[in-house]
């Protein structure tokens, strides 16, 4: 009896274990997926699968395979893709989800729902909005890339490093998709060069779970992200300091942000319901000043113009955000936290457009470079 029990116990352990095995070589991993909305209102799902030639020498050459299918839900279109593959399709290593702008303007949650439910999904995957067709962007495969499957992900990573894009993933936007009081931005891309490259265009503003159609331009992303307390490895801002100098480049300067501190404080206000002060202190190095070597006596003026230019830029960004009704600074959540009774009286859906957001930007010039 004892023997039998032991054998049965072993069988339970070993057999149930084998059942669960999922061999790596027997799956096709999708690296990038694109979702579009067709005119008929069904989803079109395109995935990129890297295939590697057998490689006893070196890592082997990668070739890419594209598959497109349609379906009523994202899972259905996924099953439709699976039907055409020699092995099982697995999105477990999905790095980027491209969402066509048509689709993003609707609710994006239904497409992403399956990703949140399955424990095997890769929640670190980056959602990206593409102006126009996502499928088209996915199919851009520059020949110079060693690993074509990592092309789009590479673009985002390098933009995060230069403080032009936020580090987003399905996990990080998860709570903001549904909660009131804070919205999010996603990277925005567009197919350029007559379909040969994909370029990064800025940040797409979301309200609740749909794309507002308004964006923060590429030129304004760095300042916006600094106000959101995000800084990559490098942060550079080019801005116009003067008017009417000749030649034209003399009007401009580029600063490199070495250090920054930022705070967003909101409080109730009688006139505008809510008043938000965004304080941003930048410690910068002048990286480019084409006019001359920049003498010490000029510094106060440069500092003043710089602060003015940056404040103008910030105001413009804030205007776009309010027009889009996308509370990316989380002002609503902060109000809810600090003034819960006051929050009850607000109708955030409408009031956000009316509140006053004031940027206060101060610039300390630490260095003019090693030139002088």
């Amino acid at each position, binding site marked *: 009896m004892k023997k039998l029990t032991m054998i049965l116990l072993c069988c339970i352990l070993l057999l149930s*274990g084998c059942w669960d095995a999922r061999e790596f070589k027997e799956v096709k991993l999708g690296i990038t997926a694109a979702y579009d909305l067709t005119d008929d209102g069904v989803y079109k799902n395109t995935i990129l699968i890297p295939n*590697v030639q057998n490689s006893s020498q070196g890592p082997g050459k990668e070739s890419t395979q594209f598959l497109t299918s349609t379906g009523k839900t994202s899972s259905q279109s996924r099953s439709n893709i699976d039907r055409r593959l020699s092995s099982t399709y697995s999105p477990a290593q999905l790095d980027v989800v491209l969402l066509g702008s048509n689709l993003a303007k609707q609710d994006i949650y239904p497409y992403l729902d399956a990703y949140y439910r399955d424990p095997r999904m890769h929640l670190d995957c980056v959602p990206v909005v593409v102006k126009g067709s996502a499928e088209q962007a996915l199919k851009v495969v520059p020949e110079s890339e060693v690993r074509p499957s990592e092309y789009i992900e590479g673009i985002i990573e390098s933009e995060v490093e230069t403080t032009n894009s936020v580090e987003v993933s399905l996990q990080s936007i998860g709570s903001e998709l549904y909660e009131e009081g804070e919205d999010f931005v996603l990277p925005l891309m567009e197919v350029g060069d007559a379909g040969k490259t994909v370029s990064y265009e800025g940040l797409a503003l979301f309200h609740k779970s749909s794309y507002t159609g308004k964006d923060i331009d590429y030129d304004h992303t760095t300042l916006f992200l600094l106000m959101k307390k995000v800084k990559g490895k490098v942060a550079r801002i080019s801005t116009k300091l003067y008017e009417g100098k000749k030649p034209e480049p003399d009007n401009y300067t580029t600063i490199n942000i070495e250090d920054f501190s930022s705070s967003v404080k909101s409080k109730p206000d009688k006139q505008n319901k809510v008043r938000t002060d965004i304080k941003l202190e930048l410690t910068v190095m002048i990286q480019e000043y084409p006019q001359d070597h920049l003498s010490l006596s000029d510094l106060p003026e440069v500092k003043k113009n710089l602060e003015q230019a940056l404040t103008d830029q910030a105001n413009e960004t804030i205007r776009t955000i309010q027009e889009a009704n996308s509370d990316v600074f989380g002002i609503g959540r902060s109000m809810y936290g600090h003034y819960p009774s006051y929050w009850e009286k607000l109708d955030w859906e409408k009031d956000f457009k009316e509140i006053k957001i004031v940027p206060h930007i101060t610039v300390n010039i630490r260095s003019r470079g090693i030139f002088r």
Partner: protein
Amino acid sequence: MGFFKQKNNQQVQEKVIREDKMPPHRSTASLEKNIRYIQEELKNSTDLKVRLLPGNKQALLYLDDITDPDKMQRYIFTPLREMDGDIQKIKDREESDDLNKAVSALLEGKSVYIIEGNATCYFFNVQQNVTRAIMEPMNEKVIKGSHDGFNEDIKQNINLIRRRIQHRSLTIKKQTVGDYTESEIALVYVEGIVNPGVVKELETRVKNISSDALLSAGAFSEYIEDRTYSIFPQFLSTERPDKTVSQLMEGRIAILFANNPTCLIAPVTFYAFYQSPDDYNTRWLVATYIRLIRLFSFILAITLPSFYIAVVGFHYEVIPEELISPVLGAIRDIAYPPIVEAVLMVIVIELIRESGIRLPSPIGSTIGIVGGLVIGDAIVTAGLVSNLMVIVIALTSLASFVVPSNEMSDSLRILTFPLIILSSVLGFIGITFGLLMVLIHLCRMESLGLSYFTPIQFRDLKDTVIRVPQFLMKRRPEQLESPRPYKSNELSDKHGKK
């Protein structure tokens, strides 16, 4: 478990009487009778020589192959001539009237002198000593430090230890084991440092060994170790006197064997198998670095193949993005599941190792090249095993050879198998269960009644996972419960503080 049970209907066999417990057999005054008795007792072996001296009144008996003719000439015949043939005037002799003692003496390599009309036998020690020169042990080489090693002569081995510890507390207790072989063993310890309870325990265990023959140190340890079914060695074996002495001074017991250069050390902890005499000869920082690498190699040796199998078989989500295409490219066209690959590769490595051991060294290295390069390359090109698996298994066996102790290295390689099987059926959970079992087993183990896997507390870390400078290691290891817990009386050492 019927395989291990003693059968009840086992044949009852006669108990062998050991040579030193033979009942006395009085010798008679008749020369002929005495010689016949001895010849019969030795079953008329042809190497028993009976040399009748002129006049046929006196005879010298000896076993030809274990006596030294030179010594016989020097100690018997030359003095005999000088004393005018009177054997009783030669001083350097033993005597007895017990013929069974004479037989024992012959077996030890003595020669027996018998005289007609005299019941007393005289024994002369003319034993031939066959010893090897003192050489550095092949499998325990060090870069710095003493290069001598034990050999097959127990006297010489004790000599090597005595020369290193010149103190009256160094205790040597000789005993014999094996009813036929009467192999001599010596328990060596330092009285006052060693835990007396442990000595008593070891002595009891040795006394209770009942066997016809003691053939090797390994077999001996199986008689007295705490857990024979365990995969881990419970006695540290070494052929180095310096290692033995440092263990003696920590309060452990060394067991030396006649005709065997191996010395067993007990009680030991798991970490003792990861210490090398080199550690105490190099800078402490370097020694610490190497120790950490060795311990890391322990983890690597038992888990790397199973980790790899679990990843490609269950959890490919954890592969970093950059590695997906290389991994996929390597394993895509392999016909077998990863466990078959792994077992195949492990067997190939074991074959190379095992075939190389006993071959003479010029052929041995050829086997290494043929096995390692040709098979390794061809097996990947043929698509039987992926090149990643070759890397994994090669790293694993390298890591298992890093261990200074040979037995521990063997244990590690065996331990890889259950983990490979567990990981191929249960993934990471399987590895976790497997490692948990190993850990529980290690914690439950004892070496001579003292805990084998002593708790890793900060004090014991100093000479286990890392090695701190000597002046910081004032305590003997906690595990031994030594009556002299400190290595020095000067507890507040002024060293390094000026």
